[in-house]
């Protein structure tokens, strides 16, 4: 397959996944910001939303230091000057989809194209809360449809595998960044454990990766910070955990390697990252430092992205 086609498929999947993640971040932030201060609600939430989305710098360049709900929502959802706004994600996804139409199934193309057409109806500034809620569920549904269309209709060949690798690399990055921005509330600190202040923060982390219900099914306990970290980092049952993402990345990179008959540096790195996750225990992670652990994961994940790029996409 053309390298450019693989590149487009890989990034198409990444942008769809990113849009979904942004919608969840906005959703959760709004929820938290509405809580009374005694339950952990604070205006800082909008600042941390920018950090989680990795857009703090760009935001500052446009809006300066003032962080308001309305500005952050506009910036993350619609701003043309934010290269990763939901709107831009959809726009780039569609541009990519147009240039690789031959590699997409009709169902995938229709999902992307019709959402892009529908998106235009939302592109207003200063949405009401209700409109925003509708918009978020539209974005989440779109990514579900895209994912489902890809899963149900694509041939199981390199086109499918590259788009899956893109999706999981992006997903791992998103999960890691959510954890990184909130890592301080996950640190075992006897003073806070069980207190209402952080409970809602933990719950919101789970919610942002749609895992609040799953948590209870997996641990059958009340929400505890180390368990939240365990679920999102090490638990293979959890589809957004770093371990699960790397199981998938490893598998699909191996599919590609077997298909082409050649292993390369990206396969080796993916396997070693997966092994490292497999050998980690939560106690050790907390001991060496959660922040450091996640930080080095993000770096390795980025490095994997570059290796995939060098090996296949150029």
């Amino acid at each position, binding site marked *: *397959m*053309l*390298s*450019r*086609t*693989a590149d487009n498929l890989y990034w198409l999947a990444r942008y769809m996944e990113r849009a979904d993640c942004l919608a969840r971040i906005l959703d959760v932030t709004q929820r938290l910001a509405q809580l009374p201060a005694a339950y952990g609600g604070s205006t800082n939430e909008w600042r941390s939303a920018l950090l989680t989305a990795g857009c703090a710098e760009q935001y500052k360049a446009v809006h300066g230091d003032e962080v308001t709900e309305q500005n952050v929502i506009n910036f993350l959802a619609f701003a043309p000057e934010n290269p990763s706004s939901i709107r831009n994600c959809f726009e780039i996804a569609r*541009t990519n989809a*147009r*240039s690789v*139409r*031959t590699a997409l199934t*009709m169902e995938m*193309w*229709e999902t992307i*194209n*019709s959402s892009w*057409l529908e998106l235009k109806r939302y592109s207003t500034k200063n949405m009401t809360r209700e409109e925003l809620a509708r918009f978020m569920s539209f974005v989440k549904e779109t990514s579900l449809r895209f994912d489902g269309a890809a899963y149900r209709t694509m041939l199981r060949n*390199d086109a499918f595998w*590259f788009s899956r690798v893109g999706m999981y690399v992006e997903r791992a990055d998103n999960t890691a960044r959510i954890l990184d921005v909130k890592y301080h509330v996950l640190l075992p600190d006897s003073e806070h454990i069980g207190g209402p202040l952080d409970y809602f923060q933990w719950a919101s982390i789970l919610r942002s990766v749609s895992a609040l219900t799953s948590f209870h099914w997996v641990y059958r306990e009340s929400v505890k910070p180390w368990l939240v970290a365990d679920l999102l980092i090490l638990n293979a049952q959890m589809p957004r955990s770093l371990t699960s993402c790397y199981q998938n990345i490893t598998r699909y990179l191996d599919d*590609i390697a077997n298909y*082409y008959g050649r292993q390369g540096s990206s396969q080796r790195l993916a396997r070693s990252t997966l092994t490292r996750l497999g050998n980690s225990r939560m106690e050790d992670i907390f001991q060496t430092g959660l922040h450091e652990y996640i930080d080095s994961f993000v770096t390795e994940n980025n490095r994997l992205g570059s290796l995939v790029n060098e090996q*296949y*996409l*150029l």
Partner: protein
Amino acid sequence: MSVAFDEMTNADGSIRAAYTALSRWLSDVPPDVLDMRRKEAEFIFRRIGITFAVYGDSDAQERLIPFDIIPRILTGTEWRRLSRGLEQRVKALNLYLKDIYSRREILKAGVVPEDLVYQNPAFRPEMNGQKVPHDLYVHIAGIDVVRVDAETFYVLEDNARTPSGVSYMLENREIMMRLFPELFADNRVAPVENYTDELLATLKSLAPASSSSDPAVVVLTPGIYNSAYYEHSFLADKLGVELVEGRDLFVRNDIVYMRTTEGPRRVDVIYRRLDDDFLDPLAFRPDSALGVPGLMSAYNAGNVTLTNAVGTGVADDKAVYSYMPDIIRFYLGEEPLLKNVPTWRCREADHLKYVLDHLSELVVKEVHGSGGYGMLIGPRADKAQIELFRAKLKQDPTNFIAQPTLALSTCPTFVEEGIAPRHVDLRPFVLTGADKVRIVPGGLTRVALEAGSLVVNSSQGGGTKDTWVLEES
């Protein structure tokens, strides 16, 4: 201007045979059902993303070409006559190009004036003496045809470079079959869906001798901002070949490769939808970022086939057009089966004088213009426009030809006020391979949606129709 020939209804109100079933259906079906299906068709087109871009119109970057749900119908007998004429015409075009780029017998014989070749911006000296596979240059031709009465078809234009529109022929049929299955039960319509298979067979037949037994074919597009990008991706998809941009290809030791996830892969046949000028920055426009450096040298070495060949534009401009009947006689020793529209060449003094005296009756076109841009339709123009063209003509007469305004045939069309006659033309596609000529029965019918308008170009508000060729049984 006389009343135009209507393809469904005779002057006395009777219905022509080909349209019997359709006419009955049209009178039975309630208008709101038609309206609903029209909206449905539009919805499908937009969702599939069958759009085209209009240059210089940033708001409407992706527009739909209006689709008319009433088909245009030809009988099998009409079609066979037409397709024989098309085959003859394309055969002559290929012989002409071979001659122009080798011995130039036709210039020596004085049939075509030399400057029409040498002064022609589409003439490619690089092609002199260049051998092309099977001496074929125009592998994919779109010949624009209009009809003026029950018997007479005129060729309006030969498109021998990168004719577009075939995706509409195919998609229009798909949509019609989806929306109106009952119509296809009442009419025996010859299928067109095998076009892409025929195209693939044509392209493979043209592979260079040095290629493997299963030649690698690609479609080369200028990219997603090109007005016909949808068509490029559509064709690549149906052909099952890669859709490449210039940057996906490179040349090493005069062999063309594409960059793939498994490393370089050889390319044998390039169905290019990129103009000559942009193909290779080393040979043509040095600023072209769309092309492939070194492509021409691989081509000259005979290691890759370009379809259509380089330099075919020298055969299809509007000045050469006027010589086509002579060109056919010269190479084939046959009378042209399809007529040419009488054409005044403004390059000739007596023709120019006639044109200047009759501007208000004539259609004046630029020799190298296309898409309905830069033309004057005398009977519809105001004084200022006519004077503007008079000045242009005097300044650069060789750049223009003039033709009488033809009474193009009309077809029933579903418009605002209901079903009304609108003018149509037809672009059938002629495929010429090493083994044979292939023409699928049909083509792209374009329709001028405005009452009385003769301009069918999509860039000027024209629409399209499905084109049916009825089988006799």
